[in-house]
């Protein structure tokens, strides 16, 4: 299959998940763009993993050149539209804005980027390729997430053939399946990928590449293979009752409501964990109609891995947090088919990062859904079978500058290399790696 099904936004989904950062109007975009100082060698550019020339695209907005603005963004970051929505700008470009030292609000770079990208995509996005000839050399990407998309787009710009393989029916990886809908709609992710398809990137869906034999076939057919496989399934709770039907891991829960049409949720929801994905799940549960959402975390507020602004949003929306709390069992209803509650225990730190249960501190709370969000495990099984590609701490080991793995035919980028960062990090990896692969292809084919 080479054509992805087009996904229109589900109206109920749109109604339940209004955008958390609505787009700027034309007038407010102009006003904001004019606030930008146009720093030299701007810190926002340096802070962006893809080094988007922020002042340049902002000035183009101010000067009424929206197409030029969008192309400036896309030149550095082919997923500029989704990054504009999902990037944690507080710790990236906007966090680096010199306005912070001027006692002023930083420039709303994310919203301005979205302004330019939305106009571009609304006007029938087309990207002119640097090279119109098709050059000799073909590369396969495993996984259709942001790293592969960026990698493939960069190669296509330079005239090389790329095919992306993914086991799921839709492209985009976490961009389509895993980002909270109030930040990035699956339909917007797919619209952006249509633009990349328009550049001539080929897609093959529905085939999971996992065997030696499949990899051998790819190696024969393609000059190089790019691993953009991300991380693996979410870790399981591994407590009694975790197999009950009301226990749904956060990524599955998010994918179900985003692309599976499952717009129902329990009345009382427990989320286990306090990372960004946990917060996404908790806030989604509220939007889907949960009356109460509680989060359990085994350490204190200061130790959570969610960004501070995500945590603040969750608190403001009414999510309750239980610190130093660990689940010990999911409690089934009498007929054993549903969940009636969860049993928790207080824990305390005993130094060296170790925790121990506080004796006799168990408490139960009623709930009808449990969403574990305690991290993704790496795709170790696949990777260990992967033709001598070496791993380090469960991640693919690569040369940082080229993205090349210990097997010269394999390159890698994104979460499987960096352990799980942001979309923009995956795009940066993909692009950087593509530039080095081009050098290898040029050497090989001339």
């Amino acid at each position, binding site marked *: 299959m080479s054509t992805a099904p087009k996904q229109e936004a589900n109206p109920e989904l749109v109604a339940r998940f209004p955008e958390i950062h609505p787009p700027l109007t034309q007038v407010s975009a*102009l*006003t904001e763009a*004019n*606030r930008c*100082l*146009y*720093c*030299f*060698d*701007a*810190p926002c*550019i*340096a*802070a*962006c*993993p893809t*080094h988007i020339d922020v002042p340049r695209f902002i000035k183009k907005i*101010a000067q009424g050149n929206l197409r030029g603005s969008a192309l400036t963004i896309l030149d550095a970051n082919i997923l500029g539209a989704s990054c504009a929505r999902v990037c*944690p700008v507080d*710790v*990236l470009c906007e966090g680096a804005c*010199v*306005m912070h*030292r*001027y006692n002023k609000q930083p420039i709303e770079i994310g919203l301005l980027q979205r302004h330019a990208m939305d106009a571009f995509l609304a006007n029938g996005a087309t990207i002119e390729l640097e090279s119109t000839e098709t050059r000799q050399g073909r590369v396969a990407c495993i996984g259709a997430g942001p790293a592969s998309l960026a990698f493939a787009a960069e190669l296509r710009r330079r005239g090389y053939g790329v095919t992306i393989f993914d086991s799921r029916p839709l492209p985009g990886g976490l961009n389509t399946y895993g980002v909270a809908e109030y930040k990035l709609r699956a339909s917007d992710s797919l619209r952006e990928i249509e633009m990349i398809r328009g550049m001539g990137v080929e897609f093959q869906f529905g085939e999971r590449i996992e065997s030696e034999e499949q990899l051998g076939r790819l190696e024969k057919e393609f000059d190089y293979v790019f691993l953009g496989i991300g991380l693996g399934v979410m870790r399981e709770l591994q407590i009694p009752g975790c197999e009950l039907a009301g226990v749904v891991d956060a990524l599955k829960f998010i994918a179900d409501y985003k692309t599976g049409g499952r717009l129902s949720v329990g009345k009382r929801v427990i989320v286990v964990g306090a*990372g960004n994905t946990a917060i996404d799940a908790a806030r989604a549960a509220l939007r889907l109609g949960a009356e109460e959402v509680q989060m359990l975390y085994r350490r204190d507020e200061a130790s959570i*891995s969610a960004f501070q602004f995500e945590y603040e949003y969750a608190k403001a929306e009414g999510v309750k947090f239980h610190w130093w709390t660990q689940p010990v069992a999911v409690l089934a209803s009498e007929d054993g088919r549903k969940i009636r509650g969860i049993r928790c225990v207080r824990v305390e730190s005993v130094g060296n990062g170790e925790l121990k249960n506080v004796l006799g501190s168990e408490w139960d709370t009623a709930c009808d859904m449990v969403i574990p969000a305690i991290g993704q495990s790496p795709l170790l099984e696949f990777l260990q079978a992967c033709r001598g590609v070496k791993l380090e701490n469960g991640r693919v080991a690569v040369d*940082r*500058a080229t993205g090349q793995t210990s097997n010269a035919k394999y390159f890698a980028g994104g979460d499987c290399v*960096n*352990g*799980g*960062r*942001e979309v*923009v*990090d995956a795009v*940066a990896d993909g692009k*950087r790696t593509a530039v080095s692969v081009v050098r290898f292809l040029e050497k090989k084919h001339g």
Partner: protein
Amino acid sequence: MVEKKTSPDISVLFAGKIHSPNPFWLASAPPTNCGEQVMRAFDAGWGGAVWKTLGEPITNVSSRYSSIDWNGQRMMGLNNIELITDRPLAVNLREISEVKKRYPRNTLIASLMVESKREAWHTIVQQAEDAGADGLELNFGCPHGMSERGMGSAVGQVPEYTEMITAWVKEKARTPVLVKLTPNISDIRVVARAAKRGGADGLSAINTINSITGIDLDTFVPRPNVDGRSSHGGYCGPAVKPIALNLVQQVQGDADANLPLSGIGGISDWRDAVEFLLLGCSNVQVCTAVMHYGYRIVDDMCDGLANWMREKGFGKICDFQGKSLERVQEWKHLNLNYKIVARIHEETCIGCELCYTACWDGAHQCIHLDRVGEGHSGNGRHATPAERENVSRQRIAMTPIPKLDHGSLRNGGAEPYATPLARIPRVDEDECVGCNLCSLVCPVDGCITMERVDKNIAAESWEQRVANSANPARKCD
């Protein structure tokens, strides 16, 4: 006991005859089109008004105005193709009379423009003065429309006409006569002298500047669009203030031209007004700022002026009027040995590096980013801006994720300032020519100051230097 404070006196006496409670008059323009407007303006606090130019009624076009916006700010400059009053003369005269009766303490000047015939001028002068005008302003400056009919700037651009018509008016006038000068001329002093020769009691300057504000890139029609065509108009507003100040200085610095002068051109607040007064104006006239924000702006004009005068210890306007005139000299009198250099105050620098790029591309390449590490390229010269940008773009950046980073992304050493030292530019004071550019582009007030460094060097102007080199005996080296 409470000490009685006396407020500074901001009233003015123009040309020895016209009393005004403050120096702020409305210029002859749409804000002074009718009596109802002028009365509301006086209620708001305007000291005077120059009535929209009287003459034979004309027909105006629509549209009439266009403007230049700048970086999100509206109406930095305004352009109009409106002509003189389009109301019957009798109506205007009746309203002038009524306003003057109800507001005897405010100044009312009639702006006049009729065809270049002695009788026509005598008639209109008589009519305006009979209506009660405190003075007359001869509109020899309107640059559009009326000039095609031999009036307005068509008169003001020819010194002989200016002198002749001024003299005709003076034959009849009992009140002070001001001649309003056009800036659309190569040397404004020539016409000012002609007006003085003709017997004018005062001048007003400047009228609007010929302009085409812009062209619609979709329709290809310049603005303002009148059914697919446009015409050059008169430019005014904040954009023209520097031009107006220069022309005011030229007139005031010329003994054959200078007369009591009513300053006009982009005055938007009390500070602008003070600048015109410092160059010798007796009062000022305002239009665009009122067209933008309404009559209410006069409140802060009076208040700001009085507060500034109190702060500076000036009791009356004449205490500082013309104070800056002697500070404007020909270039040849400027001290060549005066030397200043830029100093960057690190503690307020925000690291935008605008001074750096401005100095490299627009000035003298003497601001560098070499406080930390790679300030030099391999061969010992300073790295160019492009080289610096290249280094930055090659760096690999990642989203900081504490769980994954284990502190490895943080740089160890404590920074002395809020801005990383590597981003704070350094001035090479030996190379700095003291041009001011960096301090002009710096967005932070007071972050870059220009400091004097020429201690113990006697002043020498270009004129003196030329004289000294022509007469080497006087040289002492």
